[in-house]
């Protein structure tokens, strides 16, 4: 009997210690992204302090409030419906365990709360009268939390990982029907223009390189004829992104629904944001953000919807970039056979191309080997080959060694796409 009691006591103490500073409730919902750095969270907290005569209410409410603060921060750290967490992968979660007690200490939690409501959204006595549950709204400083976690090496700062290669270059273009030019749509539609402006602002705030649409237009026009990319001819966003050498392109659609409440027009904006890896047109992340239905101007609603969507998409982009860079700088390398070669020679050229890339790149992936086109993805880790021109020179040299009968000629060269002619 005594042993059972001892074991139970130890178990309880262990559980209590494990709980420590962590919130008890952990119930929270994402309301909206107020700014790029702050998110509005509605969180519940539970607290109960017993005294000689039963529940000590005022102290219990204070405890529940503190638990609600912690639950709001917990939600931002781990994520939930509508909001990606800061700690995502298993490794990050493992690294977080030794730090979580410190993060959720009372003093620390307060520093992550930018604002909290003066009144409760609800206050209920629960657990047979033994505890009080409150619900409140908080604005949580997501960027401060992120800083806390990067300082303690729980998550990597994107800038640290991308020390040499830098943050990815992005380009934002509206989603259009196949064959239509997104840049033309952008010029004519105010909502699309507003969304583009918000996305670019959001991204530059986070130190991403952003290619502006008018820049993209000029470059695309210059390189249009030289782009030799099979299978994506009608996807102009892809083609434009490739032509300017962006690592990622973000396409978005904006819908603003209007109805009348009385005689007042109210609008609701929804913005779908999809991010693609430029070289492969592979989707990296997608999210739809909604604004409140409101009488506010459409531009304000579009901005609200974009902010709600981008929070999650950009988080996923960062994760992709960190992963991808471990393999090196990624390029789409297209060998376009422009000279007159017979069938055997074409096989040899394909073979030589493969050998060349195997020698230069840390990792390769064959996309297409057709009659006149050989399409590869290559990840370059060699520090000497981090610029497109250096890479081209090395390609040319190695290809000459692998197949002396042909030479490589530069057709298109940017940080993402290298198109070489074989003649």
């Amino acid at each position, binding site marked *: 009997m005594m042993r059972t009691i001892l074991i139970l006591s130890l178990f309880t103490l262990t559980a209590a210690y494990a709980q420590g500073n962590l919130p008890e409730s952990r119930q929270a919902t994402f309301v909206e992204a107020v700014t790029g750095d702050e998110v*509005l969270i509605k969180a519940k907290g539970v607290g109960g302090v017993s005294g000689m005569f039963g*529940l000590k209410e005022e102290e219990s409410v204070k405890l529940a409030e503190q638990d609600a603060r912690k639950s709001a921060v917990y939600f931002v750290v781990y994520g939930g419906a509508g909001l990606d967490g800061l700690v995502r992968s298993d490794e990050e979660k493992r690294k977080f365990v030794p730090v979580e007690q410190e993060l959720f200490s009372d003093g620390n939690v307060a520093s992550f709360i930018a604002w909290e409501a003066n009144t409760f959204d609800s206050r209920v006595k629960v657990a047979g009268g033994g505890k009080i549950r409150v619900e409140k709204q908080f604005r949580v400083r997501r960027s401060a939390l992120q800083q806390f976690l990067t300082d303690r090496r729980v998550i990597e700062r994107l800038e640290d990982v991308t020390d040499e290669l830098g943050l990815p270059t992005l380009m934002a273009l509206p989603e259009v029907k196949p064959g239509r030019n997104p840049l033309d749509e952008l010029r004519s539609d105010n909502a699309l223009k507003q969304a583009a402006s918000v996305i670019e602002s959001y991204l530059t705030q986070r130190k991403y390189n952003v290619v502006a649409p008018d820049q993209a237009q000029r470059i695309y026009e210059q390189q249009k004829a030289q782009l030799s990319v099979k299978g994506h001819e009608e996807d102009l966003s892809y083609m434009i992104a490739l032509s300017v050498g962006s690592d990622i392109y973000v396409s978005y659609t904006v819908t603003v629904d209007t109805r009348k409440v*009385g005689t007042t027009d109210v609008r609701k904006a929804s913005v779908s944001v999809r991010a693609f890896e430029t070289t492969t047109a592979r989707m990296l992340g997608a999210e739809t953000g909604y604004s409140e*239905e*409101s009488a506010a101007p459409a531009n304000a609603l579009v*901005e609200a919807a974009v902010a709600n969507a981008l929070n999650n998409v950009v988080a996923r982009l960062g994760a992709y970039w960190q992963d991808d860079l471990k393999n090196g700088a990624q390029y789409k390398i297209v060998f376009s056979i422009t000279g007159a070669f017979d069938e055997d020679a074409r096989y040899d050229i394909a073979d030589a191309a493969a050998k060349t890339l195997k020698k230069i790149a840390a990792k390769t992936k064959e996309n297409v080997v057709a009659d006149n086109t050989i399409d590869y993805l290559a990840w370059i880790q060699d520090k000497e080959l981090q610029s497109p021109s250096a890479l081209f020179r090395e390609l040319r040299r190695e290809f000459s060694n692998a197949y002396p009968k042909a030479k490589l000629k530069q057709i298109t060269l940017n940080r993402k796409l290298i198109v070489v002619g074989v003649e």
Partner: protein
Amino acid sequence: MRRLCIVVVAVILTASNLSAQTGYKKKVVSFVDVVAAPASVGLSDRQKEYIASTVAKSVRMERFNYAPLPAPVIRTYADEAANAASASAEVLRPVIERTLAPGLLGILDINKEMLSTQNLSEADRNTFLATKAQSAGLSAVQLESILNSGFFYVPFVDRYRRTVARGEREIKNDEGKVVRIQRYTTYDHELKVGLLWFQLTVDRSNTPSVRYIATARGWSGSGVSRSEDQDDGTDTNADWSAFVQAVNVSAVNIGNESKKIEQFRLAGGITEVTTFGVKMNLGRREGVGLDDAYWVEEDVETEAGDIVKERRGFVKVRDIGDNRTDESAFTYAQTITGTDYSPGLSVSEIPMIGVNAVFGLASVPVRISTFDDRGPAFSLDDNFSFGLTVTEEVKNAIGPFAMFQAHIGNAAKVSELWVHAGAAVGFFSMEGKFYLPRLNSSGARIGTDSSNDIGASWTGYANLGLVKKFYFRRFGLVLQVDLKYWRTTLTATGEDKRGNDLTYTLTQDLFGADVKTGLEVYLTPMLSLGAGAEYNFFPASTSWEAKATDTDNNDTVNSDVVGPDTRYSGLGVYLWVNYALPRLF
């Protein structure tokens, strides 16, 4: 111009928790005046107009904003309602929906942005749209809540009865002799008047509809009845006066009953707890009054997961926050019952009319000294002089008392200040005898009849004064000062010269004052028990009025006779029940 008496109240509907936590939202009232009454109720135009305007005043409160409906809209309703078969909610609802609803919707639509802005919560002001976008754009939910929150009220008369009766009374001269008969007319008006409340709702296609909400009755049981007498030959207009009184009393009840309707009841939340009370997020803007009582309520989750409201106790307002100019100003309320309050609890108004009925038992100081003057001590004309002995001193009298207290704290800006008026009756037994004249058939005194013991007698007073209470939790210290009028009467019956009854009366009237202190204990917000003591200040007096009254009600009076020494000064003891009246009767 006949105007339709319709009060349109726009109410911001919120979920109960939200409204509790975020405070009461002010209502918009738009009114016209037409009283709905069946044809069988014969009210004159003047009467209807008076009812309409008085009832409108009774629901003129801080918790409402006001805006009028256009005259053509009113006329259309008036014409249709006049043809209605009855004044019931079922009959009037479609009429209101056809005629008034679009007009109210138009008013709400024009004002919805302004009204929504007033009702923005703190959380609403911290959203993205409000902060970074700095947009005053209000959400569709907020705008829709304005449009879905219009209330109409329709004054109706369920019953009206006017009765006229004739009567007469005797007029006496200074000597007490009946000199003439005064005829008079008694006008009695019995009225059942109330308000039918309807709500305007608007669907997503902006189509208005109306639904019945509640009835605020100005009566309970039988109608409110008031009567007045008018002597023949005078022009005091007692008929109208009685009617007006009935309407005024009904209007007070209607106002209070309207406050009890859930949508209009003031509700808020506790923001802070102090040593002796709480602070609430209600104030002058909502029309909170001094000494108003509020339930403190708590949401509790049951085992089944349902949320139910439980009452924890009640508080009374002691200091009103002026949140008209300062959003952060809160109202302080003293805790009366309940313990361990904490922020986040909700408060809900307990509407009261501010009139208490106090009744109980009293032991009043009446000292009547021994007296012996068989005399006859008390000289009256017509050989009616009589004498008296009091063989044992009277020390006190015991009997019931009653008073009405009316709250004047808001007018005087002094918490728990009441004005009161009351009366008490005390009965005592007096040892002694009357010595009445024995008269022959010609009215000559032939002897003295000493068979009449004084026996049971009564004393009583009426008082008017002020009451101030000081509360600590549920216990109230009561301090009272009064002006008093005291009367003691001793009565015996003899015979006149024809052998008919002749009533002999000794009466003493005195004016004085008293101070009283006591302790009241709240059992519920409406009911408390009390006990106290008072000290009366009266001059000692031996001056009495002696009177003999025959069967024809003629009096023979001597206003200044010397009788037993009587003192009312001294200590009285009281036990009472204090009941806050739910309505006037």
